[in-house]
């Protein structure tokens, strides 16, 4: 299926006493195919071999992928449950003692029960993540609602994909991250890429990007930095961070003015055109340039290239989404495709680069505060009825909608939430406004953390449960295309570690809720229940059996039954998922960033990834090759700005905002706007850039505005240091 010109028949190399296990990478939404090399005498993972026959990535891997296997048998793995009796040591690695699973479970059950008896069901919370299988994500939602009976569950997708989800739902009526398969990307004529450092964050997309240019097509990049893709782009729109909405409106205005509207498409398949046309009139190239800092000529050129393209794909990522107007940014860039009718056909469409491995699937099946399996809404009584019936609980047992990830911390600070079950996430690094978040974690009455390493967040826990890496369990994930794929087990769990689903089943039993969980004995059992639970929702996975995934090289949802081969291209029938079948072109007035620069904080601070690290760095900072390549964060500064502050390359400076400060070495580069500074976010403790970021939330997605706030640099007095 979808084998293209990059696909070559290549045999794998088998070394003596080794077998290869086909699987995918543990990290980003690309979910690159890989083979894990397993020693057949020790049954341990010892290396990696390319998976040439995976149609999306044809053997390619980034340095994280190549070294991903080193996580499994790493010296830092947690091998036994850990308990800390002295709560005064919270926030440090000290005071933990090894315990049996029984003792750990007993303690958790006792503490959780006490808290709920004293302070109500909702005094407990679950904070989860999406770097794990669909099956685990599904069960975590059920665990919170059925085993714990709390409404307070949310997940780290709020820091990642929630704005893309909100924007797609509003514009298209459905949230599938890409409307087309990745095997179309290199065949399009124009890629318009906003807020994605693709070369570092999704490197295995690059050969397809470059091929667009090799064929004579165009790449337009919107980014405050001259990233590797911006360097090679036909047009680089070097935007001021936080002004995407103005740029998207400005380009839409030019598309409409210059006759690139597909009137038939707009009339038959969309709503909202007239209103939007009126609104964007104001966004002339000059006015847009004033707000965005991009030369008007470049804006005109970009609109012309996108408008003239026979086929084009609009792509974006966290750069535009992690703003307090992230949802508006997504809808505004999606407008470009809707007005020109470049969607709902092969080689044209809209796509977001999903950040986490299962960022797509993990947000669909009930870990989000207001969602239930199959993308059902907990605020929709019909949906609640369906799920209650499936789970065998009464409707009044189903908790109501809770609050978003960051708001959980606010409720912890108010003591409305007193207990936390944290898994698959490291918010002590990844949440914004960390001084506040770390303080709330410290003051919790009781905290459990399931992880396979002792993360910065685990340092706040009373009990740590050792979970497994992706290679020691099986299940499915959904990659950035919307393709459901199979993660295979390559070795037995190290030490006494267990998969998260198993911990949740066993804990549910301790909490007297075994009858809803005890039938789940294997990952396959969870998978079968999960598929059935999604049936009838619009993210319908029912027909995506493990066998079909193997046979077809993945299955694109929706996939409703055994005869359904899935849906690689969305909207080929031009039917969008709103009740009237039409997409919505959105009229979106420009809003400024929550915190604009001023005299005291004159710089715009943004952040992002480097190619060597993944998210909070809890995994990648432990891998020798990746750590050696990027051992510590830095601050990127334009030479003009460096001159102004009299700071030089490699000099340590203090960077501070209204919320916090950190010390970084300066990296001088012309490849950034002079009014902007950049720091990578993968680092913990006093090096976390999130000590400085602002928790201004998007009104719809509740996404914090990670990507822009006002900051200042202080040159350090060397005499005093």
């Amino acid at each position: 299926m979808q084998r293209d010109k990059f696909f070559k028949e290549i045999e794998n190399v088998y070394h003596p006493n080794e077998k290869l296990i086909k699987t995918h990478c543990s990290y980003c939404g690309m979910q690159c195919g890989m083979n894990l090399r397993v020693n057949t005498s020790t049954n341990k993972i010892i290396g990696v071999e390319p998976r040439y026959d995976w149609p999306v990535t044809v053997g390619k891997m980034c340095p994280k992928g190549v070294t991903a296997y080193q996580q499994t048998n790493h010296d830092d793995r947690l091998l036994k449950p850990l308990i800390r009796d002295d709560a005064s040591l919270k926030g440090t690695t000290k005071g933990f003692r090894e315990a049996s699973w029984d003792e750990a479970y007993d303690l958790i059950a006792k503490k959780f029960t006490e808290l709920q008896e004293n302070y109500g069901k909702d005094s407990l919370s679950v904070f989860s993540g999406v770097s794990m299988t669909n099956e685990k994500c599904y069960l975590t939602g059920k665990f919170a609602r059925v085993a714990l009976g709390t409404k307070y569950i949310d997940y780290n997708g709020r820091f990642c994909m929630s704005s893309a989800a909100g924007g797609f739902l509003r514009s298209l009526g459905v949230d599938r991250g890409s409307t087309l398969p990745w095997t179309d990307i290199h065949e399009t004529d124009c890629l318009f890429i906003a807020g994605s450092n693709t070369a570092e964050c999704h490197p295995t997309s690059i050969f397809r990007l470059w091929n667009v240019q090799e064929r004579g097509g165009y790449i337009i990049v919107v980014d405050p930095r001259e990233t590797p893709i911006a360097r090679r782009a036909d047009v680089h729109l070097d935007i001021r961070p936080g002004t995407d909405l103005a740029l998207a409106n400005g380009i839409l205005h030019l598309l409409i003015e210059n006759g690139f509207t597909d009137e038939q498409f707009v009339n038959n398949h969309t709503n909202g055109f007239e209103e939007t046309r009126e609104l964007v009139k104001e966004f002339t190239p000059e006015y847009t340039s004033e707000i965005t800092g991009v030369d008007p000529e470049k804006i005109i050129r970009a609109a012309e290239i996108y408008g003239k393209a026979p086929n084009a794909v609009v792509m974006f990522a966290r750069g535009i989404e992690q703003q307090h107007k992230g949802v508006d940014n997504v809808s505004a860039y999606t407008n470009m495709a809707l007005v020109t009718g470049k969607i709902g056909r092969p080689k044209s469409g809209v796509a977001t680069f999903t950040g986490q491995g299962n960022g797509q699937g993990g947000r669909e099946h009930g870990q989000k505060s207001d969602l239930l399996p199959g993308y059902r809404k907990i605020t929709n009584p019909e949906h609640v009825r369906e799920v209650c019936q499936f789970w065998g609980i009464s409707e009044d047992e189903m908790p109501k909608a809770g609050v978003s990830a960051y708001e959980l911390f606010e409720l912890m600070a108010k003591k409305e939430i007193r207990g936390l079950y944290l898994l698959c996430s490291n918010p002590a690094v990844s949440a914004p406004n960390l001084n506040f978040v770390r303080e709330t974690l410290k003051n919790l009455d009781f905290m459990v953390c399931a992880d396979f390493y002792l993360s910065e967040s685990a340092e706040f826990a009373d009990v740590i449960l050792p979970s497994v890496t992706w290679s020691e369990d099986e299940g499915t994930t959904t990659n950035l295309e919307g393709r459901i794929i199979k993660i295979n087990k390559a070795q037995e769990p190290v030490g006494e570690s267990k998969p998260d689903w198993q911990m949740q089943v066993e804990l549910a039993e301790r909490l007297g809720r075994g009858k809803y969980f005890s039938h789940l004995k294997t990952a396959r059992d969870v998978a079968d229940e999960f598929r059935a639970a999604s049936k009838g929702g619009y993210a319908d996975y029912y027909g995506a059996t493990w066998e079909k995934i193997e046979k077809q090289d993945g299955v694109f949802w929706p996939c409703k039954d055994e005869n359904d081969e899935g849906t690689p291209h969305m909207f080929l029938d031009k039917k969008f998922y709103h009740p009237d079948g039409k997409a919505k072109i959105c009229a979106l007035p420009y809003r400024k960033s929550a915190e604009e620069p001023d005299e005291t904080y004159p710089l715009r601070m943004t952040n992002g990834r480097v190619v060597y690290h993944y998210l909070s760095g809890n995994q990648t900072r432990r891998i020798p090759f990746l750590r050696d390549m990027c051992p510590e964060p830095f601050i990127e500064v334009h030479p003009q700005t460096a001159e102004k502050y009299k700071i030089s390359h490699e000099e340590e400076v203090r960077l501070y905002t209204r919320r916090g400060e950190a010390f970084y070495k300066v990296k001088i580069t012309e490849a950034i706007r002079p009014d902007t500074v950049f720091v990578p976010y993968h680092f913990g403790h006093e090096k976390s850039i999130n000590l400085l970021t602002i928790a201004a939330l998007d009104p719809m997605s509740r996404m914090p505005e990670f990507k822009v706030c006002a900051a200042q640099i202080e040159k350090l007095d060397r005499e005093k240091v």
Partner: protein
Amino acid sequence: MKKRLYIELENCIGCRSCLAACTQCGGHEERNRNYVYDVNPLVSRQTMPLMCLHCVNPACARSCPAQAIQIHETGAVLSALVEKCIGCQNCTIACPYGIPKFDEEQNLMYKCDLCIDRTKDGIPPMCASVCPSNTLQWLTEEEIEQKQKQYNMSNGKWVTSQPYLEGETNVKVNLPGILQGITKLY
């Protein structure tokens, strides 16, 4: 069918996946044997890999007083034979690109052998297998010929490999600038 390593320098994104993969072929003692350079880091993010080009008449082998550097029948210039290498580092000095690395502890040179256990059977080396940007490719002679035609500029300013490199090499290189000659679709 004979295949060669082909390098398109313009494509490099500096991810250094080739370095990570170099340790993974099973025969490299998990030490990488190639380089990736930041071309001018204070100015731009341009990077380029520096790989052994497997010269047809390799200076490293010629300079070796102990005949420790063998040339495989595929043309791959192999790493020093452990039993012959005397650790004099002549090869590193002789190589126009500084490719051979030196292990101080073992007093031994080591270099890219083009993953000979893979490439002798036509399987791409690890670096070209994983390269996400197609900077490193494993191509047939015909595919390389086509590349050469495609990217030869009429003004003769820019060609593949020769005559800009030191001598004839088994690995073919496209210098930066491949997008200059491309006709746009519209």
